[in-house]
């Protein structure tokens, strides 16, 4: 059918559009380039994978970013879950305002957010570094976590928690034995989202970093003198881990068939 052929072509064009940049990044991690410039194909090699941690400053920047991303995922995960649960489960005074603030935090331009955070930190006399970056990242990630968690809580059958209470469970037991296991996938997605937002954030980080150098900041600095292939290798590895997690969670959350 002509129609389906057109649809096929369209689909593959979109797929290519989405994957080509990633493919280029991955390919140039295997480029046998001799100098600092990694922009023309010189042949296949695996040597950059052997020397992935060969540039100390880059390695350190990656570690700083990982630490910040993990802190962000954990703290924003915990706080965002609390907010998301409260918004999804209860109607209370100010719940509308909280909703609004969450969306404002998500839609505010990063540039504005970064600049105002810098002003805030400086006027408070806080020294810029890993702490300020983490505070900033947690701040913009909370919204994403709580929106994801709230959506799950809204679809959760209210009578499940009532049933737990009816069977003698306290509020605390009900949350940890019934509610939390059921919203865990959403909490996990929210935390992964927070991690992903944090590890490659440039704009807000640039404002709040002081002299600290994160992975994106190092790359930005290096572009002026040419990117070493190690950057591609690290990018590829981060991408691979992300894909792995996505595939694993996809397999896990697929509904199992009914047996009887």
């Amino acid at each position, binding site marked *: 059918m002509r129609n389906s052929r057109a649809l096929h072509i369209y689909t593959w064009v979109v797929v290519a559009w989405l994957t080509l940049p990633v493919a280029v990044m991955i390919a140039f991690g295997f480029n046998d380039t001799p100098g600092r410039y990694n922009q023309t194909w010189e042949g296949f090699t695996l040597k950059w994978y052997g020397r992935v941690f060969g540039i100390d400053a880059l390695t350190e920047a990656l570690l700083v970013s990982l630490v910040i991303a993990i802190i962000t995922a954990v703290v924003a995960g915990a706080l965002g879950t609390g907010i998301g649960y409260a918004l999804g489960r209860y109607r209370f005074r100010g719940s509308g305002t909280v909703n609004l603030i969450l969306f404002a935090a998500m839609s505010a331009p990063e540039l504005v957010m970064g600049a105002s955070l810098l002003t805030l930190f400086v006027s408070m006399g806080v020294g810029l570094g890993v702490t300020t970056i983490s505070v900033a990242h947690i701040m913009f990630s909370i919204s994403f976590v709580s929106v994801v968690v709230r959506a799950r809580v809204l679809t959760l059958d209210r009578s499940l928690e009532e*049933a737990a209470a*009816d*069977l*003698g469970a306290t509020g605390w037991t009900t949350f940890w*034995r019934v509610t939390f296991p059921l919203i865990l996938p959403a909490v996990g997605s929210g935390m992964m989202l927070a991690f992903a937002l944090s590890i490659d954030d440039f704009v807000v980080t640039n404002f709040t970093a002081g002299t600290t150098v994160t992975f994106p900041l190092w790359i930005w600095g290096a572009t002026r003198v040419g990117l070493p292939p190690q950057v591609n290798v690290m990018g590829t590895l981060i991408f691979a881990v992300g894909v792995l997690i996505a595939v694993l969670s996809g397999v896990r959350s697929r*509904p199992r068939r009914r047996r*009887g």
Partner: protein
Amino acid sequence: MSDTPAIEFVGVHKEFQSHGETVHAVRTLDLAIGQGEFFSLLGPSGCGKTTTMRMIAGFEDPSAGTVFLDGKDVTGVAPNKRDVNMVFQSYALFPHMSVFQNVSFGLERRKVAKAEITRRVGEIIEIVSLTGMEKRAPREMSGGQQQRVALARALVNRPRALLLDEPLGALDLKLRQQMQVELKRIQREVGITFVYVTHDQGEALTMSDRIAVMQGGRIDQLGTPREIYEKPATRFVAGFIGTSNLLEGEVRSIDDGIATLSSAPGDCVLVPVPGSVAVGDKLEISVRPEKIELERGTEAPSDCSVVAGTVSEVVYHGTSTNYAVTTAAGPEFTVFDQNAANADDLAVRGDKVFLYWNAQHSYPIGV
């Protein structure tokens, strides 16, 4: 059986605020449910039956009045501190737990010893006929099986009363009828008070020891299934439980406790009345469709109520034939005729017929 009611409501009132308006879900309710009774709260949606049940469970607190469980005031006591358990309409099985984990959840909360838990769960699983399925996840079971798990999860705690909120609503007809029998059997075996919320009058009639028919936050009638069916106290009950033919008339004369009502010429409507009814009173009576005989003759027995009419609809049901008959008396009558030996001699549309029934089968409403 002790004299203390298992559940007692004294002057219980419940109102909600909804869009700035006060909704009276339950109005000044007095109710006592006996030990070991199978008690049904029956009514259309919004009649207050579910709110009443949720006040027993503790999910709602009354705006006024007192709730007693076993003679103990539990008003304001949290659901997890009440000795009753509920079977939810959606079953509310914990999807991330196996059947065993679901059923043992309540016992674990009461810190029952492990061996005892295993024993009691095994026992109740056998009662609900689910032996061998302990390790299954709820989603791997059919609707009927999930229903049994929900029942077991509540019963294993040996509650003072079991609350069932339209528990059979999600099942298909065959399974529902099967589960009705099953529920009755289980209740006999465990001897626990069952409070059953339903809008299905057939279900309530077949299973209950007593039924409270609710409407608009009030109990219209409380009685055994037989009382409620044979002697509906209000027009609403007469219409909600089964089918009723309602007739109005003025009392013309009273002879030996049987009143003759005003009727169309040639008709005669008799009804047994209590002494409080006098000549000249307006009465509304109800007659069940299966008590009425339909005859194509011209002569009718003199001691019966007789109404002449014309058949307007005939619906053949296999075991019975349902007729709609228009009459001069006003309302269209519904008549259920058993298809016995005379099944090939059915009236057809347009036939002139006499409807007659024994005077004792007329029932005056609200006197």
